[in-house]
């Protein structure tokens, strides 16, 4: 029997004291022979290990391959790094003839940022693969004086799996295209790959590129030479293997790639007729909209509760609909709530009790916890489950999973769309004496600080700089756009009235000014949703943009009638159009007084009396509607500028490399208005310089 010690360091409440004492009485008897038996096994294993350590290179290679297969490969289903082939070490120059000892490689090990240089090329150095594969035992490595070498081992199975899965192009997965890419990695003495090349192509360029993109993220134990960490080359086949259940499933898990700027098609006989002009008088009552999804939500909540039945989480942290939304409820702090609920949801997964609803809930919580990659995997896993287990498939739930996946992709797309940088040499011909201290032309790319300063000091010169030196970065945003739109299409096709998917899809088309499509899609959305106000707003926006202001006005007014009062008040809010004195008065008004002020404001500007007057009113509503749909609110910084000045003539977006984007909104005269936006965020805020400029504009040129 084993002795236990149990200091009780803090007083427990009385009701827990008994339980504490009971647990403190926990004893377990080891089988008497267990300890000695295990010790014997350990000793045998150690003896075998010692023999292996002194074996020639061929043994090292075999061991490394097997170990890596076990450690790295077995648990990586879709795209796996299967075998590490240990090639050799250069930790001690001259130890091994024929071992690659490139000085440049050693240099790269010590240089910061070396991983960024991993590129599609043959690695530097000689031919390590040949050395390792062909003549390991014939070289000095086989001599009795050979140092004891231990091969690197891959670490982090789960992370590696996620990494490889994240780089495996979805388009290829869907087509069932896989392959093996042999990477040759230089792993430094801390186990980090700092140089990589392709030693054997898969024959598919996208897969080769994907493997190279993943390479910097692999983590190894360093190779050991006489117990000392050393850098080394390894050869590393990365196997991309499409999931057979996904590639050949009877039906689509993820929508095949679509024309990103097209409308979805729905297998419904009257689908095309749904895009005919709306009869606004015959729309269903607004009250019918709110509960349209209620029964679907209830079913999903019940499904979620089934996943949590063992842990009683729904009772303690629920109600289930809140958990399904990933939103904290009750009196718990949100962070604590998320930790507790996500723990229970993970436990349900560990117990094999997960279902699409619990995966949806956990994914939503993970987004709030900053784990967006994991969230996406969870949504995709949920989608795969809905195919494999049709009994769990509920159209609304499937649409929610598609929509959440699409939203993540949308954030990523917004983080890379139209991002570029400005070549420093573009400043060469520009004149801006006031900015002389900010430096002249140089090599490389201009800093964001310099661009912002020039923008406000010398806007004319800056227009010249942007005109000649702005260089869009190749960020792959087109791919994200396609994937995002494919997800939104899928959500709408399975659940045509899905509000979020319809709105995001149509706003995206609006960003590309595809107004005919926006109008057509908005009409369908409005019809199938029973008259959702966002559908009416989008239809109104499209009509306004194609010059049909009278129809646009009818749609906007129908939307305002069907919206909650507070939302409607946001859209008709006038504050951005008022001078500072009037604005101060306006914001203090009671709602009814504010409505009267607004009516008076527009009447004095010709609403109802002239076409121009009506057009101004409609233009304001169109701007406010777009700001609400695109930025989430007409009152944030971006919404404020949009409502006040409308769509900018041009936008330049510059990435300073810190995950922060700086946007330059060009309105044709004066400086561009500058905003800062964080990647993967819709929030767009004025820079301090931008705020100062906009405020000054308000003082000098009060809005009319």
């Amino acid at each position: 029997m084993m002795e236990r010690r149990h200091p009780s360091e803090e007083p427990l409440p009385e009701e827990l004291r008994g339980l504490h004492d009971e647990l403190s009485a926990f004893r377990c008897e080891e089988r008497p022979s267990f300890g000695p038996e295990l010790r014997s096994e350990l000793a045998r294993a150690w003896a075998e290990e010692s023999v292996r350590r002194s074996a020639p290179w061929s043994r090292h290679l075999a061991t490394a391959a097997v170990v890596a297969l076990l450690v790295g490969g077995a648990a990586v289903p879709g795209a796996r790094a299967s075998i590490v082939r240990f090639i050799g070490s250069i930790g001690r120059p001259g130890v091994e003839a024929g071992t690659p000892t490139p000085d440049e490689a050693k240099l790269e090990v010590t240089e910061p940022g070396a991983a960024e240089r991993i590129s599609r090329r043959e690695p530097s150095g000689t031919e390590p693969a040949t050395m390792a594969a062909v003549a390991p035992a014939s070289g000095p490595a086989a001599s009795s004086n050979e140092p004891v070498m231990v091969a690197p081992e891959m670490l982090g199975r789960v992370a590696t799996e996620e990494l490889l899965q994240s780089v495996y192009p979805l388009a290829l997965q869907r087509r069932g295209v896989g392959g093996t890419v042999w990477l040759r990695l230089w792993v430094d003495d801390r186990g980090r790959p700092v140089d990589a090349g392709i030693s054997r192509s898969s024959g598919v360029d996208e897969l080769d590129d994907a493997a190279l993109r993943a390479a910097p993220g692999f983590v190894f134990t360093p190779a050991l030479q006489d117990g000392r960490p050393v850098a080394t080359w390894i050869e590393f086949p990365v196997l991309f293997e499409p999931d057979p259940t996904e590639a050949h499933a009877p039906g689509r898990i993820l929508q095949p790639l679509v024309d990103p700027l097209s409308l979805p098609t729905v297998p419904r006989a009257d689908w095309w007729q749904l895009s005919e002009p709306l009869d606004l008088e015959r729309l269903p009552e607004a009250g019918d909209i709110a509960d349209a999804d209620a029964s679907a939500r209830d079913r999903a909540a019940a499904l979620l509760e089934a996943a949590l039945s063992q842990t009683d989480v729904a009772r303690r942290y629920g109600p289930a609909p809140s958990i399904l939304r990933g939103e904290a409820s009750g009196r718990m702090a949100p962070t604590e709530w998320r930790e507790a609920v996500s723990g229970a949801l993970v436990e349900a997964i560990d117990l094999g009790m997960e279902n699409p609803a619990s995966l949806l809930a956990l994914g939503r919580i993970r987004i709030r916890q900053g784990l967006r990659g994991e969230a996406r995997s969870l949504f995709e896993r949920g989608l795969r489950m809905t195919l494999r287990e049709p009994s769990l498939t509920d159209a609304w739930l499937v649409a929610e999973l598609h929509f959440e996946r699409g939203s993540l992709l949308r954030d990523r797309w917004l983080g890379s769309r139209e991002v570029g940088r400005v070549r420093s040499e573009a400043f060469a011909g520009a004149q801006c004496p006031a900015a002389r201290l900010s430096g002249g032309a140089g090599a490389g790319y201009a800093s964001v600080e310099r661009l912002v300063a020039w923008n406000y000091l010398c806007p004319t010169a800056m227009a010249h700089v942007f005109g000649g030196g702005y260089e869009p970065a190749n960020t792959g945003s087109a791919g994200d756009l396609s994937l995002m739109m494919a997800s939104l299409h899928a959500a709408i096709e399975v659940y045509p009235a899905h509000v979020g998917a319809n709105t995001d899809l149509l706003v995206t088309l609006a960003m590309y000014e595809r107004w005919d499509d926006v109008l057509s899609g908005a009409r369908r959305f409005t019809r199938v949703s029973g008259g959702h106000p966002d559908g009416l707003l989008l239809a109104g926006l499209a009509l306004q943009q194609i010059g049909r202001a009278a129809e646009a006005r009818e749609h906007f007014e129908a939307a305002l009638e069907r919206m909650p009062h507070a939302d409607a008040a946001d859209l008709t809010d006038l504050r951005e159009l008022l001078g500072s004195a009037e604005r101060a008065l306006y914001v203090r008004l009671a709602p009814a007084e504010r409505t009267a002020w607004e009516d008076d404001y527009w009447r004095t500007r010709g609403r109802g009396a002239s076409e121009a007057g009506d057009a101004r009113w409609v233009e304001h509503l169109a701007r406010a509607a777009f700001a609400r749909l695109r930025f989430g609110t007409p009152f944030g910084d971006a919404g404020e500028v949009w409502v006040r000045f409308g769509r900018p003539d041009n936008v330049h977006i510059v990435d300073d490399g810190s995950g922060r984007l700086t946007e330059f909104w060009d309105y044709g005269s004066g400086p561009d208005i500058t905003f800062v936006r964080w990647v993967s965020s819709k929030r767009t805020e004025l820079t301090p310089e931008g705020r100062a400029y906009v405020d000054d504009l308000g003082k000098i040129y009060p809005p009319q």
Partner: protein
Amino acid sequence: MRTEQDVTPKGAEPRHARPEAPLPSDFEAWYVEHRSAVYRYVRFRVATREAAEDVTSVVFMKALKSFPRYDEAKAAPRTWLLRIARNAVTDHLRALQRRGSLHVSLDSIPDLVADVPSHDERVIRQERIQKLLNGSRTLRQADQEILSLRFGAGLDNAEIAEHLRISNNAVAVRLHRALKRLRISVERSAPESMDPR
């Protein structure tokens, strides 16, 4: 060539009592010093003695394999071993959960004991302990972890804090919450009084 029989006559000491091939001296010392704590920690988390033995074996095999890379600056030996144990338990439970229940019948718990004088009382205590362990397995992983470190491995708050890299105060808070949740869990599964008396 000498065989085992040449050096170990039949009827002599059991095999494990013979002089063994050496282990690295530090590792040998760790094994002697920390095996029981690791075993108890594992036993607290898994359903049977056999499973505890298997997982404990895995822990020390992995530790031995990684021993040349052990960095004293990063973790004390016991902390390192218990981290390996945590991963091994997680792997074991995942494999088990695919096959069936985590819970174990009260008929198969002969290794759980209590210091009580009578056989009957001992049986009652054994059942109660097993119920508590079964209840603990319905808790979230973090709760199970802290309970098993405390009541399985026998670590005090400061040692748990070092192991989990959190403050002593945080350990106390988490322990308190875990006990509370365990109490609720056990009450729900067996509505009798929590009072052990």
